[in-house]
C-alpha cells in the first residue's frame, strides 16, 4: 500500500477524494437544499424592505445636508440585506454543518473512512472547506441583491461592501467550527444541534448581561458573533475581532478533529481537548491585545474628523477617562459608540472606566457625581458632563494644552439618496431563486436515484 511510504501524492489524492465525497454528501443533504431555498426569500425580504425604506427617506429628504449618514448604502441597504445571512448562519447553517460532520458516524461510514491513515484534522478540514464553499454558494442571493442595487442606479462603495461580506463569512466560519465541534463530541446529531443552539443562546445572554453589568462582560460581549457582525456592518474592521474569530474557528476545528478519531480513549481526548483549550485561551488573550483597526465606511462613520485624529495622535501618554454612567443609561451607549470607540482607534492607550452603583442609573440621578465624565492626562484632571464628541475633544485638547485643529476643507459626505422601488426583486427572490434551487435539487438529488 502506497500510504506506507507516506507518499504525499497518495495523501493528496486521498484528500481530493475526500473533498469529492464531502461535496456529494452535502448535495445529498436535505438541510443544504432547505438552506439554499430559504436564502432567496430571506435576503429578498430584507433587501426589498431596505430599498423601500431607503427610497422613502430619499424622496422626502434627498438633498438635505447633515443627514447624509442616513443615506449611506452601508447602513441603509447592506447591513439589513446581509442580516439575512446572519439569520441563516444562526438557524440554518448549523444543521447543514452537523449533517456533514455527523453523517459519517451515523451511517457507519466513519468506521471505514477512519481506517485511512490520514490525519483527523485533514478530514475535518475537508468538511470545513466544503461547508465554507457551500456558504459562499448560499450567499449568492446577497450577491444578486448587489447586482440589483447597481441596476437601480445605487451607489456601491466596494471597501464597505467587502467589509460587510467579510464579517458574514467570518460569522459563518464560527458557526461551522462550532457545529463541527458539537457534532464531533456528541453521539447524535440532535444533541449537537441542541448544543449549538445553546451556545448561540448563551451569546445572547452574554450580550444581555453585558448591557446590564458592563465591565468585563461588556468586553467579552464585544467578541460574540452578533457584536462582531455589527462592527463589520458599520464598516469597521478590528484586528482583535478578526484574530479572535480566526482562533476560535481554528480551535473549534482542531478539537473536533480530536473527537472524530476512533480507537482513542475518552480520557486521552479530554486531556488533549483541555490542553488545546488552554492554548486557545492564551492565543485569544494575546489577540485581544491587538489594537489596529480600519474604517472601511465611505462616510468614515467609525472615525473622528481627520484633523482631530492627527492632533490626538500627537498627544503623548495614556489618557484616563472615568465616566459616571450606568450600563443601561442611553447616554453611555451614545458616548461609547460615537466618541470613545472612535477615540480608541487613534489613541490605543486610552483607558475608559465606567463607574455606577446601579445598572440602569435611574435611581442614581440624585447623586451629585452621576453623569460626570473625568478626563485625566499627564497628572491633570478635568470634568465635563457633555456626552458629545465635540465635548470630549474640547476637554482633551484643554488637558493637553493644545488648540483644537481647524476644520479641514474636505468635502462633506452627503450620502447617496435613491428614490426607486425594488423593481423585479420580489420575482427574483421569491419565485425564480426557489424554483431554480428546487429544480436543481430534483435533478441532482432525487433525479439521480
Amino acid at each position, binding site marked *: 500500500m502506497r500510504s506506507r511510504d507516506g507518499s504525499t501524492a497518495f495523501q493528496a*489524492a486521498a484528500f481530493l477524494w475526500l473533498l469529492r465525497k464531502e461535496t456529494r*454528501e452535502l448535495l445529498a443533504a436535505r438541510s443544504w437544499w432547505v438552506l439554499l431555498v430559504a436564502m432567496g426569500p430571506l435576503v429578498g425580504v430584507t433587501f426589498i424592505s431596505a430599498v423601500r425604506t431607503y427610497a422613502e427617506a430619499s424622496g422626502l429628504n434627498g438633498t438635505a445636508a447633515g443627514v447624509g449618514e442616513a443615506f449611506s448604502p452601508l447602513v441603509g441597504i447592506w447591513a439589513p440585506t446581509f442580516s439575512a445571512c446572519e439569520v441563516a448562519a444562526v438557524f440554518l447553517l448549523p444543521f447543514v454543518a452537523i449533517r456533514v460532520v455527523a453523517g459519517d458516524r451515523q451511517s457507519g461510514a466513519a*468506521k*471505514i473512512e477512519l481506517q*485511512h491513515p490520514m490525519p483527523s484534522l485533514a478530514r475535518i478540514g475537508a468538511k470545513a472547506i466544503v461547508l465554507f464553499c457551500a456558504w459562499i454558494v448560499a450567499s449568492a442571493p446577497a450577491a444578486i441583491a448587489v447586482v440589483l442595487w447597481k441596476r437601480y442606479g445605487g451607489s456601491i462603495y466596494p471597501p464597505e461592501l467587502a467589509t460587510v461580506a467579510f464579517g458574514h463569512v467570518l460569522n459563518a466560519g464560527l458557526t461551522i467550527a462550532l457545529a463541527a465541534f458539537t457534532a464531533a463530541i456528541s453521539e447524535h446529531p440532535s444533541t449537537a444541534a441542541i448544543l449549538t443552539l445553546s451556545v448561540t443562546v448563551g451569546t445572547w445572554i452574554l450580550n444581555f448581561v453585558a448591557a446590564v453589568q458592563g465591565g468585563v462582560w461588556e468586553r467579552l460581549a464585544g467578541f460574540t458573533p452578533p457584536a462582531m457582525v455589527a462592527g463589520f456592518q458599520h464598516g469597521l474592521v478590528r484586528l482583535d475581532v478578526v484574530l479572535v474569530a480566526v482562533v476560535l474557528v481554528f480551535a473549534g476545528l482542531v478539537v473536533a478533529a480530536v473527537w472524530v478519531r476512533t480507537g482513542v480513549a475518552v480520557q486521552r481526548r479530554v486531556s488533549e481537548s483541555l490542553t488545546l483549550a488552554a492554548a486557545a485561551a492564551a492565543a485569544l488573550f494575546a489577540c485581544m491585545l491587538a489594537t489596529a483597526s480600519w474604517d472601511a465606511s465611505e462616510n468614515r462613520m467609525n472615525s473622528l474628523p481627520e484633523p482631530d485624529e492627527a492632533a490626538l495622535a500627537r498627544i503623548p501618554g495614556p489618557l484616563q477617562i472615568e465616566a459616571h454612567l450606568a450600563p443601561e443609561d442611553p447616554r453611555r451607549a451614545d458616548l461609547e459608540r460615537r466618541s470613545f470607540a472612535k477615540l480608541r482607534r487613534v489613541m490605543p492607550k486610552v483607558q475608559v472606566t465606567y463607574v455606577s452603583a446601579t445598572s440602569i442609573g435611574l435611581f442614581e440621578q440624585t447623586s451629585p457625581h452621576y453623569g460626570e465624565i473625568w478626563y485625566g492626562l499627564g497628572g491633570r484632571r478635568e470634568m465635563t458632563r457633555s456626552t458629545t464628541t465635540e465635548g470630549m475633544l474640547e476637554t482633551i485638547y484643554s488637558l493637553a494644552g493644545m488648540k483644537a485643529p481647524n476644520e479641514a476643507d474636505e468635502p462633506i459626505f452627503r450620502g447617496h439618496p435613491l428614490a426607486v422601488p425594488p423593481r423585479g426583486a420580489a420575482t427574483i427572490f421569491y419565485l425564480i431563486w426557489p424554483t431554480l434551487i428546487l429544480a436543481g435539487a430534483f435533478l441532482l438529488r432525487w433525479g439521480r*436515484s
Partner: protein
Amino acid sequence: MLHIRNLTKRYGRFTALSDVSFSIRPGEVLGLIGPNGSGKTTLFECLGGVLPLDTGSLTREGRPLSARERASMLFYLPDAIVPWPAQPVRWTIDFTLGFFGGRAYLRDEVVERFELRPLLDVAMGNLSKGQRKRALLAIGVLMPQPLLLADEPFDGLDLRQTRDVAQALRSYAWAGRTIVLSIHQIRDAARVCDRFVLLSGGRGRGEGTLKELSAMAAARGGGASTDLEEVFLALT
C-alpha cells in the same frame, strides 16, 4: 503474520473481552466463532482500531504494530452499517478504491463475482440487507491491505449467495489474501474457514483447525466429534 496477545476490553465494569490471544497466519481464512454477545465485534473493532484496547497487543514478528502500520496491514469491514446511503454503489466502490488506493485491477472481476452489476446505479441506502452486504464485501476485497477482517460476512445472504460469497472469499485467500471472518452461524464457518478461534463470554476457548479443536474437545472428555458445532459446545 499477526499475533494478538492478552487482549482485554472493558465497558465500565463490564468486561467484553478478557485475555484473548490467538494468531493469524498468512493466506488463511480464519473464523472467529462465537454466539451473540461473545465479543466478536468488540474484538474486531479493537483490532481495526475503532475501539481503544485496555490491555493487550498486536504484534508482527515480535514487534508491536503502530497505528499507521495497522492501517496499512489490515482492513476492517464492520457489520450493520449503511455507509454513504445517498451514493450509488458504483461511486461508493470508486470512492473507496481512490481513497484507500485499492486494487483497481480487480474492480470488474469483483463486481461480477459479488453480482453487483445490476446494482451499480442503486443508492447504498436503497439496497436490501444482503445486497448491501455483498457491496461491502466487494469493497473489503478491493482494499489494498493484505489482511481483511469481515464482521458477519454472511448475515443477510440467502443460502446460494452464502455459498457463492464463501467461494469467492476462499479464492481470494488462495490468491494470497488473508481473511478473518467473524461468524455466529457455525455451519457457515465450517464451510469456508481453514482454522477457527472459539470465543465465548469474552474469552478465547480454543484455536486451531477442526481436527486440532476436535482433539482438544476429546481431551476434555467431550468425545471425538468432527462436527464443528459439537466441538464448539464441548469447548465452551
